[in-house]
Structures are given as structure tokens and as C-alpha cells.
């Protein structure tokens, strides 16, 4: 668990959620600190949405404690809601309201004054690049734009905790990059973001911590760096050669037992687990050049959330 002793904005203890005879979430313990972007990963049906709905005070757990920014959601739900921003999966909107009207309604609900409302609506429309659509009926927006509008609504009251359920679904690549930057900026302001997805690449770039759920249980969680570091004491080394060549056997032996060799468009790429340190890597590079191999690039491939996922065996996640 991370950040024990620092400001914890999301805290759950032994949370369980049942739907009839089915247990959706079991024994969930979370501690997410201010400034973290926490990725909740898992296949469909893993319990991500139930977890988020419990945190959003929309679903009463069978039992367990949930604190949002220090407010017990069982007894002080109103206070918790004031600091929460929630964006559901397949976020719906009111078709018969204009974009700025919809935002204005929620700015009112959060108690902003007239001037604050105008200013804040402008700011969030800029943030999600919807300024030019402010007078358009929300029902006519495309799926991606609707997602952006709901994200803008979520940002309106500057929540300390943001809960985003599959926020990138329906977004085009540019909008995804904007979303990523926005969440990074959000976290840099000391707020907490919990974002769920079953698509690894959505989260691997910008999450500071991840939790991997399977069948309602958290199978692994913690800061991404720590999880990656804990994978093994080796590093993933890549060598790119500009020609298709056969690498001499002694060299291959030096690289280890699991060398992956790919020949593609007249080039060769070698990828392998390397157990040595930086000096030994330098020696390996010298040896390659000494044997006359046309080395174009020699680098260590950074490990990410995918490697962690593969390590824990959650292979259903795409």
C-alpha cells in the first residue's frame, strides 16, 4: 500500500458488494493518496464499476468502510459528494439541453454564484475543447464529444477526487491524449483520480498506481514503479541491426536463453532478458560491434503495466 502517512483521499476497508447470490466485490482495501492517478484494471465483470459506484456513494456495499476525503460515505454522503466527481461508463446526457445549459445546471447544483458559473463553464469547455459547441444541443453530440461534455461536468466543481469509469471509450486518439494530459494536470494539483479501464494502453502511460481486479478481488496493487521493479531483477534489452544477419552462437549465449529474434524488412531485432549491470551491457555492445554486427540501436525497453498484468496472469485484459 502506498502513501501511508500522507493525505489519503480514498480509503476503503474490507468492502463487499453482493448482487443477489453473486458477489461482485470482495475484501476490497484501498488507500489512494492525494496527487495519485490510480488505474483500476481488470476484465469485464471484474468488479471495477461496482467499486467505482460504491466510491461514488451510488451503491451501498453489503459491508465495509468507505471514506472519501475523510468523510464516511455511510454517514456523511452529502459531504463526500461535494468533493467527488464521477463520470460513468457510457456517460449519458440530457438530449434536450444545450451544452452550456447542462453545465450551468450542475454549476448551480454545486452552489457556484452567477459569475463563478460563467467563468467556470468557460474554463471547463476550454479544457475539453468543446468551446465551439457550447450552444449545441447535447443530444446531437457524437459519442466522443458526449464523453468530453460529461468530463467537463465532472470537472466543474474542481473535485478533490475524480472517479472515471472507462473514460476513454469512444474518444479519438487526440482526445485520449488530451484526456491523459488533463488527468496528469489534475493530479499535479494534488487531487486524486481513480480511472478504470479494461484497455491497458489507456492507463499504462499516466497512472502512478494501479490495482488489478479479477473476479471481484484485488489481486495486485501499488505504485507502477514498485510493481515493475518487483517483477524480476533483470532488464529487457533490445538490439536493432540494420541487416538480416545470423548472430554468432557465443554471442547469443552471452545474451541469455530467451532471445527473441525478429527479421523484418531487411533488419534484425534481438530482444532478451539481460541480467547484468550497465558495465556488462556496455561490454556486450562492444562484443557485438567487435564481431562486425551492424548495430543501429542498443537500449533497454521500459517495462509497464502490461508486463505486470502478464506477470499476474490477468490475460483476459486486452
Amino acid at each position, binding site marked *: 500500500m502506498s502513501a*501511508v502517512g500522507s493525505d*489519503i483521499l480514498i480509503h476503503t476497508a474490507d468492502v463487499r458488494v453482493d448482487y443477489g447470490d453473486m458477489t461482485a466485490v470482495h475484501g476490497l*482495501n484501498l*488507500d489512494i493518496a492525494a496527487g495519485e492517478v490510480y488505474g483500476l484494471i481488470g476484465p469485464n465483470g471484474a468488479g471495477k464499476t461496482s467499486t467505482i459506484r460504491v466510491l461514488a456513494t451510488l451503491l451501498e456495499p453489503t459491508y465495509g468502510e468507505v471514506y472519501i476525503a*475523510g468523510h464516511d460515505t455511510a454517514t456523511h454522503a*452529502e459531504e463526500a459528494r*461535494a468533493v467527488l466527481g464521477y463520470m460513468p461508463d457510457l456517460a449519458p446526457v*440530457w438530449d434536450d439541453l444545450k451544452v452550456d445549459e447542462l453545465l450551468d445546471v450542475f454549476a448551480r*447544483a454545486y452552489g457556484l454564484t452567477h459569475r463563478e458559473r460563467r467563468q467556470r463553464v468557460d474554463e471547463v469547455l476550454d479544457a475539453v475543447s468543446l468551446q465551439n459547441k457550447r450552444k449545441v444541443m447535447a443530444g446531437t453530440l457524437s459519442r466522443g464529444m458526449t464523453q468530453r461534455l460529461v468530463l467537463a461536468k465532472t470537472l466543474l466543481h474542481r473535485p478533490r477526487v475524480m472517479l472515471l469509469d472507462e473514460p476513454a471509450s469512444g474518444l479519438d486518439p487526440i482526445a485520449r491524449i488530451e484526456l491523459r494530459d488533463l488527468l496528469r494536470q489534475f493530479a499535479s494539483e494534488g487531487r486524486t483520480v481513480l480511472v478504470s479501464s479494461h484497455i491497458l494502453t489507456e492507463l499504462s502511460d499516466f497512472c502512478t498506481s494501479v490495482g488489478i481486479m479479477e473476479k471481484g478481488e484485488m489481486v495486485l496493487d501499488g505504485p507502477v514503479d514498485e510493481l515493475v521493479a518487483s517483477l524480476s531483477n533483470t532488464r529487457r534489452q533490445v538490439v536493432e541491426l540494420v541487416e538480416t544477419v545470423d548472430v554468432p552462437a557465443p554471442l547469443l549465449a552471452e545474451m541469455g536463453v530467451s532471445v527473441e529474434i525478429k527479421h523484418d524488412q531487411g533488419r534484425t531485432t534481438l530482444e532478451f532478458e539481460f541480467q547484468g549491470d550497465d558495465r556488462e551491457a556496455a561490454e556486450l555492445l562492444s562484443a557485438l560491434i567487435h564481431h562486425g554486427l551492424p548495430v543501429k540501436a542498443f537500449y533497454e525497453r521500459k517495462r509497464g503495466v502490461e508486463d505486470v498484468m502478464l506477470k499476474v496472469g490477468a490475460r483476459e485484459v486486452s
Partner: protein
Amino acid sequence: MERFNVFTNPICVQHARARLRLMPTLSWGLITLTCVAFIYVLIYFLLIKRGEVSPVDAAKAAVVPLIVVQGVLLMGMGTSAVATGIARERDRELLDYHRMSPMTPAAKIVGYLFGLPSREYFLFALTLPFVAYAVLRGGVPLLKVAHFYVAFFSSVWLYHMTGLMAGMVSRKPWHSSFVSLGSVVVLYLVLPLFARVGLSFFDFLTVRPTFYGMVYEEIQSAGQRPNIPSRIMLAQQYETVPFYGLSLNPTAFSLVVQVFVLTAMYHVVRRKWVDAAWHPFSKRFSLFFVFGVVTLLVGSIWPLLFDTQVHDELVDRMQWAGDTVILSLLIGLFFVVSGLAVLMTISLTTPTAQTSRKGLRRARKRGLDRIPLSWDAATSVPTMLVVLLIAVVGYVVVLLAIQSGPVYEIKAGMERWLVALGVLSVLVVVAFQGMHERFGQRPVILGLFVFWVMPVMVGIIMFAAFDAWRPAMYIGALCPAVAGAMSLALLLDASAGQVVDGSYLLRGSPVEDHARMVVAVTIVLYAGLAVIAQGLRYSASCKRKRLERDTADLAERVTPRREASHQPGPPPQVAG
């Protein structure tokens, strides 16, 4: 308080914007203005030119049609707008956004109640100049008009709240308009019919009593067609409302009855706002609800038993029925209304097996041996016992009032049928609760159809087509309503009540002995059923507890192994 101001409440503002867009509003406004102007001008000039009525009387005559238009706008279209609007938002999960906004449930309810029908309020406002002109020109006392509009708006909010409640509790959106329509028909059309046989309080769910009591006489004119006698009677009937020993103003009594029903609906909607999975009634509120219904019921019957003038007025209105028939009807209606309130309460507070299991887990986690009685997951047996006690006390009060009042008396031979009715009702409720908790709502509804409705149908066919009345009666004994009706008939005979021309209902007929037997068979049948149902309920409850305990014990034995690889660490410092 700003959240309760309809002009600043965010949800009101939202729906006002959506429903008052320029073009649709202009179109609807034009249609409404045209219709209202047509009605007013037609009546006004038709009566002046053709009916040789003074302009003052012609203006008076236009008041009622204009009020009807206002009723159609707010009560009809407004209720529909509320029911479908809230159901659509719930279905599309838009309600979750407002659930999460930091407003109190009361402010959110106010927002939907006044925001969803905002167009209908606007159209209503367009009719006001016509009504105002008719009232002022006709010289109708403004105080009485104000009384009427207090009851009118109270009824409108009651209707709208019915729509809101239907939208919140229905499982599917299309159910909501069905449930809403059904509730409106039952609450405001069917139940008020009971007023004709003495249970006046149902009539006060509508605007009718205040209209006849306060306004009707004022808008009658000398030059119009003669007053219809039944309407004059209505006007006299509603001038004051007898309730226990009191004579209340019809507007005040309307408010009392409507606020009671509004409170019940608000309770349901509020609970559904907080958590859609909660039961519509809390266990505590259900006690208050049944107490309120029984209090209103006894209060309406009371003057008929003690005040000979009130009683005589009812006898005059019900010329087809004799004194003793009215008594039997009153007792029968007491059982129908209080019984429905009790059954509805039990149905709304009885947990499903899954809810019970969830409650057991939660209670166990909190170190409790059993589920606290106030939780939704707790058995509804204690609730059933208390609501039964309330209803029985109400019944005993009515019996004592019959005995001590100047109008009726309990004659020898009546007691056994009065007791039989009470015992049968209690047994039916106990059996219903046991079955409901053991098997759930749907199987019970199916069971009611198979064992209550079908035997009556079969009995009717056997009696009508084959003249086999004996087997028909015994098959009908499966349905407690049949035995109840026979008890009432025997009660009527025992009270020496002659129905028509000196003849009795059952006395002396070949059916008489079988009727007694049918009542006895039904009581024995439901006594057995009550024991079996409660036994099944208890055994299922014990099994559930045992299963949960075993599962929890197993989980506790497994958990240490799991925690060894997943240390939660010390308690965190939680940010404030």
C-alpha cells in the same frame, strides 16, 4: 432555502429550460389560449344571447369549464409529464448525476416536482386571466375561490407526487406510466366511491368536496337551468366534514387527508432517491402509515354511529339500503380498507431472501447476532404484529362505538360473526406475510390469483351454469373474501336486518347452514395455512442464518492465508 425556491432550484431550472423552449411553448400556448378563449367566449355569449342570462351569471357559468381545462392541464398532462420524465431519467441513469450533486433529497424532489411539469404550469398561467375575469365579473367571493385553489393545488401536487413515485418505484419505464395511471385511477376515482357509503375521507383526496362545499353554490345563477338535486345534496354534504366529534372545514380536511398521502409518497420517493434498492417504506414509517389510515377510517365511521343527523343523511343518500345494510357495509369497508393498508405495508417491508442474506452478512460484520429490526433486511413479522394490533384496536373501537352509540346496537348472535371476520382477517394477514417472506412477491401474487381469484371464477360458473351452488360455495371458501362476504350476510341477518320487503339475505334459505360452514372451513383453512407459512418462513430463515454462519467461518479460516500475501498496512491518515 434557496434550493426550495423553484426559480433557483437547479433541477427546476434545468427542466424549465428543456420544456419551455420557444417554439414548442409558443405552439402549446397558442393551442391552449385558443381553446380557453373559445370555451369562455362560447359559453359567455351563448348564455347571454340565447339563454337570456345576465352577463354576471354568464361569467359565473364559464368558471367550471375553465377549471376543467386547468385540471386537464395540471392534473392530466402534468402528471403524465412527471411520471414519464422521471422514469426516462432513471432508465438512462441520468438520475445518478443528480443523486451525486450535493443537494438534499427534499430539494431534488422539489426540483423534479415543479420542474418536469413546467410547461403545464405555463399553460395553466395562460388560463388565469380568463378565470380571473369570470370570477370577478361573476362576483364569486374571492375567499371561497382561494379556498378552492388551495385544495386544487394540493390535489395537483398529490397527482404529481403519484407520478414521481410511480417513476421511482417502477422496474421499467413503461411500467411507470401504467403504475401512475393505475394509482391515479385507484386513488382519485375508485377510492372516492367509498365516500358514497360513509367513508368520506377518500373523497377528500380529490378537489370535489371543496368545490361543492365552497364554490358550487356561489357559481349557480338564478337564470340558469334548475339546480340538479343530487348536486345540491353534495353541496350541503360538504359544507362541513364530520370527523370523530368534530365539524371540519372541507378545505382544512382536504389538506389533512392530502398531506397524509403526500407524506407517504414523499417518504417513498425520498427513500428511492437515497438508494434505489431500499424498500419503499421503512419499517417504522409503515406503522405510522397504518395508524394514519385506521385513524382516518375510524374518524369517518365515528359520526355515523354517534350523530343521528349524519347517519340519517347517509340513509337518505342510500335509499336502496336499509339501516342494517349500511352497518354491514361500513364493517365490510373497514376490513377492506384496513386490510389493504396492512397487506400493502407488509408487501412493501418484507425482505427478499437475498436482502436478508445481505443483511445477515452486514450484521455479522458489525458483530451483531441478528439483523436489527429497523433494517430493511429484517423480517417483517414484528411489523406485521404491530400493524395488526393497530388494525385490531381500530376494529374494537368501532365495535365499542356501535355498542355505545345511539344509532346501532350489537344484538345477540352478531358477536360470533364480528369475531369471525376479525379472526379470519388476522389469519389471512399472517399467512400472507409468511408466504411473502418465504417465497417472494411474484409467487405470492400468482398464488393469490390461483387460490383467490380462480376458485371464485369456478364457483360462479358452477353456480350460474349448473346450479351447483353447494360445491360452488365450498370451492369459493378458498378465497377469504367469499367467507368475509358470507360473514357479513350472516351478520346482517343476525342484526335482524331486512334487505327487501321483509326478507332476509340468508335466513331461512337453504344456503344459510352452508354459509356458516363455509366461514368455519375458511377459518380452519387459513389457520392451517398461517401455521404452515410461518413454519416455512422460520425454517428458511434458520437455514439462511446457518449457511451464512458456515460461509463466514470458512472465509475467516481462508482469509489469513490471503492476507499474508497482501498486507493492508497500518490505518491510514485520512485527509479531512
